[in-house]
């Protein structure tokens, strides 16, 4: 874990304050089970920059959702934060920023942070709406809960948000069952942006939707993010969606981030064998129909991660060193970090941290 923390410190140096929004280091979120602790998120280091769309990819069970909810301080028993911090930087004036750890914040304070600074669009967002309450009341209640807006202000803002996501004002008076899946998804997005948060975490928001509707929602979210200058952490297993949306992409495997790079780099030159596997198992329309292999084997269990590099039992390029030693996260090209023994040398300038280790 030492290496990883070293890496964060390094990133802190390379990124100036105004760019930094969320700094996660050594974050471990475990679940207590009868058979020991399930180490769902097991030492994640990540730096989210202001105004970027950060994609988080990985197969199911790799800890994506646990990480997303953990950042928001939504970890519930039997889950608990074992260690680590997630520092969120708020702008206090044009040049100064104040960081506060979301994980140690008292419940009262994080309630204030939610919606005003942090918003969450959960998985299967169409099912989070109450079936017996009008859309209007659901959005307004949340707004009153998290801010001290007056009724008129809140109502005006709600209509503004509905319009931003392309919904008619009449939708406000409707019940969820009167809306289609895509419309419900838009309602949750409207609610998420209602208090102008700085960061939205969207967890598989379009997975259950049709491709046509998915395109509409993705394009809308991208527009809203750039209009409002907000940061979006977009969690999905669908690599094609990441290619369409993300600025930077983090690949998660077995509770760890194994590769972080600008999305163009990731697709042009994926380094980690797992990333390569993910990208090569996207079926493409056109061209020769070759037999694709995917990634053989099964995702490991969080109760008992494999030793050394956690991908080694499935890795096509496994070496002896992989079985015993976990690879450190190294910056092998500008902005391109990877944790794999195939790439043991960081770019020059990153060397001092090897000494520290």
């Amino acid at each position, binding site marked *: 874990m030492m290496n990883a923390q070293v890496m964060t410190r390094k990133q802190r140096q390379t990124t100036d304050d105004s760019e930094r929004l969320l700094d996660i280091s050594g974050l471990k979120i475990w679940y207590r089970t009868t058979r020991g602790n399930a180490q769902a998120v097991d030492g994640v280091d990540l730096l989210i920059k202001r105004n970027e769309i950060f994609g988080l990819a990985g197969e199911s069970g790799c800890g994506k959702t646990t990480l997303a909810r953990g950042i928001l301080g939504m970890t519930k028993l039997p889950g608990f934060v074992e260690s680590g911090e997630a520092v969120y930087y708020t702008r206090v004036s044009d040049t100064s920023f104040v960081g506060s750890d979301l994980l140690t914040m008292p419940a009262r304070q994080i309630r204030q942070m939610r919606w005003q600074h942090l918003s969450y669009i959960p998985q299967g967002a169409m099912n989070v709406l109450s079936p017996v309450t009008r859309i209007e009341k659901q959005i307004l209640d949340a707004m009153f809960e998290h801010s001290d807006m007056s009724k008129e202000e809140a109502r005006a803002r709600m209509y503004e948000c509905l319009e931003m996501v392309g919904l008619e004002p009449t939708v406000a008076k409707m019940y969820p069952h009167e809306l289609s899946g895509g419309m419900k998804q838009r309602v949750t997005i409207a609610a998420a942006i209602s208090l102008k948060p700085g960061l939205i975490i969207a967890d598989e928001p379009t997975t259950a939707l049709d491709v*046509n509707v998915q*395109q509409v929602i993705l394009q809308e979210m991208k527009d809203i993010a750039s209009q409002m200058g907000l940061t979006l952490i977009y969690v999905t297993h669908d690599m094609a969606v990441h290619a369409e949306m993300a600025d930077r992409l983090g690949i998660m495997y077995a509770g760890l981030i194994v590769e972080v790079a600008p999305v163009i780099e990731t697709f042009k030159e994926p380094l980690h064998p797992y990333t390569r596997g993910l*990208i090569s198992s996207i079926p493409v329309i056109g061209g020769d129909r070759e*037999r*694709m292999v*995917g990634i053989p084997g*099964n995702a490991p269990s969080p109760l008992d991660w494999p030793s050394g590099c956690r991908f080694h039992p499935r890795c096509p390029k496994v070496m002896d060193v992989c079985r015993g030693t976990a690879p450190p996260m190294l910056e092998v090209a500008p902005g391109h970090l990877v944790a794999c023994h195939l790439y043991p040398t960081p770019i020059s300038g990153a060397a001092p941290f090897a000494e520290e280790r």
Partner: protein
Amino acid sequence: MTELKETKPVIDVRNTSKVFNIPTPGFEREYIAAVDQVSLKLYDKPAQIVSLVGESGSGKTTLARMMLGLTPPTKGEILYRGTRIQDLKKDAWWDFRRNVQPIFQDPFGIYNPFYRVDRALDMTIKNFDLASSKDEAVEIKSEALRAVDLRPDDVVGRYPHQLSGGQCQRVMLARTLLLQPKIIVADEPVSMIDVAVRMLFLNTLLDFRDKYNISSLMITHDLATAYYMGGPMIVLCFGRAVESGDIVQLLDKPSHPYTQQLLKAIPSPDPTQRWETRANVKITDRPLTREGSKCVYVERCPHAMDVCRQQRPPDFMIDEGHYTACFLHRDKPERSAVGL
């Protein structure tokens, strides 16, 4: 598509519709045609994989359920080797049950959580008398599991929650393989399993076609998956087959505006080629009641003409075996006989 006139289709869906009655407040009734006059044929010689593509609500699953004999069609008929599924007599019904096998979407929902997963295999062996002794039963069970890329040790004696979605789904494939069916009807089989193991599942279906001569009807919303499988494809839009033909031909020259829209909406796995056009779909206008006298896609179609609102478009032939139900192509010859 190589259409051999000599061979008879195993399943022949003829102009079939399924109409549902929607409850509405008051006394008026509303009807919705989930499947609206669809025809398709599934052959076993040669084995082929037919893809059925469409959005949710396009009637894919209803069509699959009718083909499995789970629900009767409202209009039209579905023939199994020349007999209507509903009219199959005892022996023929068992023959149908054996030769047409389903794979469902949710790999966890199909197992009873209280039983071990291999019970699905044991019961199949027992019900269809596939083995004469216990040893033989174990033997064919292991063989079937190995054929779908599973190690019997990993699976036998486990409960569903101990397996991954991909493994569960492949145990289902092993079950169908025991029966050596003629047709597999797979309803969105890969939408709930991980990308990485999705390929293993699709490859197994391809192997079934090539090694065991098993045809499949692959129902999916993902055009890229359909392309990977190859073979004939049918595009469903609000219950109607709007375009059909060999997948390469069809995706090379998509002729129906709906197919074109569907193709455009697929995110491309290349960050240097992002969407250039804005999606112009209005999510709100989802046609609920479907009238027979106009094109189903007319409300969303960018090329909508007057004739589209007055008349239901017949199938026009774009190429040999490639048909589209759109008036934009009315200069092309019209298809007279129904059937893919």
